[in-house]
């Protein structure tokens, strides 16, 4: 089948959206941007394809009435199981890579101890995987780097303490290996992983076994559908580095505008807070950009800011919002320099302010900056759509809603759970249109 793919190579995350000829989104994929942009694009695309396979599987199963009405649950299980397979695969890769780095003068005499420590750490990491991917479990992040990294750090710290090995060395081995692992193109063999994941579920549930045949058929079909990459459009911060010809690249502003328009056709103002930039876009009734503003040169108050804060507190970015929401008295924060974020937090805590209040203040500071950029672009008109990674953060959303109402009265505020994909969605639609136009031309010639 014909597929149109949009890839949004952001400064922190890379997103892909796969769309069919009917403008239906079939799959979305996300990964963290890394130094190898091709890999980032490839991974996000592969993730989108996996998503597409799930969508197709979903359709097929529904059609066949295969899992007695609990199709969603089954597919969820399957997906989690699939993710775990992926995770374990990467973990193994990481372990092997780590081992190779335990050489050189700094490790002299400690190779063996460190090797043993690493084995211990990885064993523990692998053991922790099943509960992490169990039903209802929350993961710190979707990305391997974050999940594995966070756990590695704390396990390694304990390991270092108990074995009196220098923690810095363990950390260093990890740092070296993670970039390498991340930048290795993902292993293929999707069908194999699907198979193993399925086996896994079946192991756990006897009921499933009974339906094995009925499930396998449609699944196989779904996996076998040929997905033709008809047209790919790249956008985002790193778009110029994508290995695409110029006509396959679109400005991220236009893509965000269009993407938001597709999600909410009545959108007139779009705010996107990404890792390093904050943009405010005004679009007309057709999704065409009329005006935009963004920060430049200074990344103060963008998504990365939250990243620094999360690092400082040793928690995941998605845990920040809920913590901040507990605040009753928002601390006033003036400097939003991203790099100073940690220092500011420490300062405030040292002054005896409560963690949640400071966090709430930091969120407010980000949103205040965004409000300025919005105002610069021409203010808010109905409807207003908030996109980008930070839209996933409920504390930020709360502050935003408050400030929007204070300054622009009651307007409809749209936040899609998939809002991080807005840019990629717009790009996919550009891809679809470009291909269609091409089709029209070809038809025209033929006629």
């Amino acid at each position, binding site marked *: 089948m014909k597929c149109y793919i949009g890839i949004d190579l952001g400064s922190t995350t890379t997103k892909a959206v796969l769309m069919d000829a009917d403008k239906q989104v079939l799959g979305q994929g996300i990964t963290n941007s890394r130094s190898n942009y091709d890999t980032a694009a490839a991974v996000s695309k592969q993730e989108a394809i996996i998503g597409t396979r799930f969508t197709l599987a979903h359709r097929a199963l529904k059609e066949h009435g295969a899992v007695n009405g609990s199709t969603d649950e089954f597919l969820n299980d399957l997906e989690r199981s699939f993710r775990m397979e992926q995770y374990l695969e990467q973990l193994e890769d990481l372990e092997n890579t780590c081992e190779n780095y335990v050489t050189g003068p700094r490790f002299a005499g400690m190779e063996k101890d460190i090797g043993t420590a690493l084995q211990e750490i990885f064993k523990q990491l692998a053991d922790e995987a099943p509960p992490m991917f169990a039903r209802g479990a929350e993961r710190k992040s979707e990305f391997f780097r974050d999940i594995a990294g966070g756990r590695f750090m704390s396990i390694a710290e304990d390991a270092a303490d108990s074995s009196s090995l220098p923690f810095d060395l363990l950390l260093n081995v990890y740092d070296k290996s993670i970039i390498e692992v991340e930048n290795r193109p993902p292993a293929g063999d999707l069908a194999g992983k699907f198979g193993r994941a399925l086996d896994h579920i079946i192991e756990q549930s006897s009921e499933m076994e009974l339906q094995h045949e009925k499930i396998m058929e449609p699944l196989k079909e779904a996996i076998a559908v040929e997905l033709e990459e008809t047209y790919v459009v790249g956008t985002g911060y790193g778009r*110029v580095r994508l290995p695409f010809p110029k006509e396959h690249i*679109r*400005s*991220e*502003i*236009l893509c965000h505008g269009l993407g938001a328009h597709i999600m909410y056709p009545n959108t007139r103002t779009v705010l996107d807070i990404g890792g390093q930039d904050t943009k405010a876009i005004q679009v007309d009734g*057709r999704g*065409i*950009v*009329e*005006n*935009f*503003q963004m920060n*430049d*040169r200074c990344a103060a108050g963008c998504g990365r800011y939250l990243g620094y804060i999360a690092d400082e507190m040793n928690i995941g970015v998605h845990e920040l919002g809920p913590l901040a929401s507990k605040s009753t008295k928002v601390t006033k924060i003036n400097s939003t320099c991203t790099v100073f974020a940690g220092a500011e937090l420490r300062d405030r805590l040292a002054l005896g302010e409560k963690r949640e209040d400071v966090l709430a203040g930091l969120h407010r500071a980000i949103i205040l900056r965004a409000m300025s950029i919005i105002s*610069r672009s*021409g203010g808010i008109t109905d409807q207003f759509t908030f996109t980008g990674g930070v839209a996933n953060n409920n504390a930020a959303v709360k502050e935003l809603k408050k400030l929007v109402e204070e300054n622009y009265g009651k307007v409809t505020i749209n936040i899609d759970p998939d809002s991080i994909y807005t840019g990629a969605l717009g790009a996919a639609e550009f891809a679809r249109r470009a291909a269609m136009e091409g089709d029209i031309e070809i038809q025209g010639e033929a006629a």
Partner: protein
Amino acid sequence: MNTETKPDVVKDASMLKQKEMIAGNFDKLTDAKELGLKISSTFVPGNLNELLMCFGIVNNLPEINALNNAMRKQSGPMIQDAEKMGHSEDVCTYVKADIGMMSRGNIAPNGKPMPDPDVLLLSYTGCYTFLKWFELLREQYKCPTVMLHVPYQGDGKAEITQNMRDYVIKQLKEEVIPTLEQVSGVKFDIDRLRENLKNSAKAEDDLVWVLESAKNKPSPIDAYFGGVYYIGPIFTAFRGTEDAVEYYRLLKGEIAERIKQGLGPVTPEGEVFEEKYRLVVEGPPNWTNFREFWKMFYEDGAVVVASTYSKVGGVYDYDGFRHDPDHPLESLADYCLGCYTNRNLPERTQMLVDYMEDYQADGLLVNSIKSCNSFSAGQLLMLREVEARTGKPGAFIETDLVDPRYFSPANIKNRLESYFQMIEQKRQSGAVAA
């Protein structure tokens, strides 16, 4: 204005002429002591070249030196020198480039040291920084300094009051002219001034014709990047000279020829490109990356059809002002009072709106200059107003005049591209809708 960045593919007679004029002037400046000439430093806006010529004083414009140095990629270290001497990072980089140049021996583009000025003619017109700049220079050169305070046209009216005019004329009569007489030892001769003003008016007529040629489609000139060259002689040490008259005569002929042939603007790469977007630009250009910046426009088919920067040293097209031999001092006063940055924001805004309409532009681009509060403070509102009044999209970019640290090519390109794509997309769907 500058010899090095001159388009090198096509060498029109006017270009050669200008090159020769500039070189001649630098030689005159650096050899002034031998030639027995006196030098005055003064600014582009409110520059009284015709008057200075009456005393045989040569005109040295520190702004022009700064931009020349920027185009030759020398301004960066000069600015840093000045910062090392205690000047803040935050202030206008023209001043710092000038002070840095001084600390490096004041070498003119012809490679010879520029002698110290004999007088500082502080025409305080449209920019606060001028005041401090010459106080700083005075500290250095310890030479006579004469202040000509040109009051700002502050009140939203496009009008010069009699009080303002009288004040300027009185200063000319009782402060400026006596000082120049004293410095030069030459007695003031009003008839000489009238002669010079006559030349000015002639050249101004032709300049206006050239600027207005951009109303053609395609426009034969780029009124911003190219405009910088066209305004050079009028804005600097040549207004009032025969040379300037001749230069504009040649230029006019060449452009008339381009119009006849349906040609677009001359670019540094010479080739003629298809005019896709017609823009009005507000704000000075960036000098450190002038060519790179220009290229971002012509590569995508964007032509600037009108710019306000080409009015900093005098507005001749908008309300038809000309230097007037019959009212010499009055017209000098009105000239100073009417310079672009001496006009209030409502008036500047209206001017942009009119340009947008008169030149059938697709949009307004603001190049906001970090250095220049005179230009920049208020541009965001101007942009909004112009968008609202014309219904055309605007865009905003930020650079600096002569500080290379503030030119971020990727950023600017990103914005320009998005802007052009936006105009394009609007136009297409507009066509569909229509």
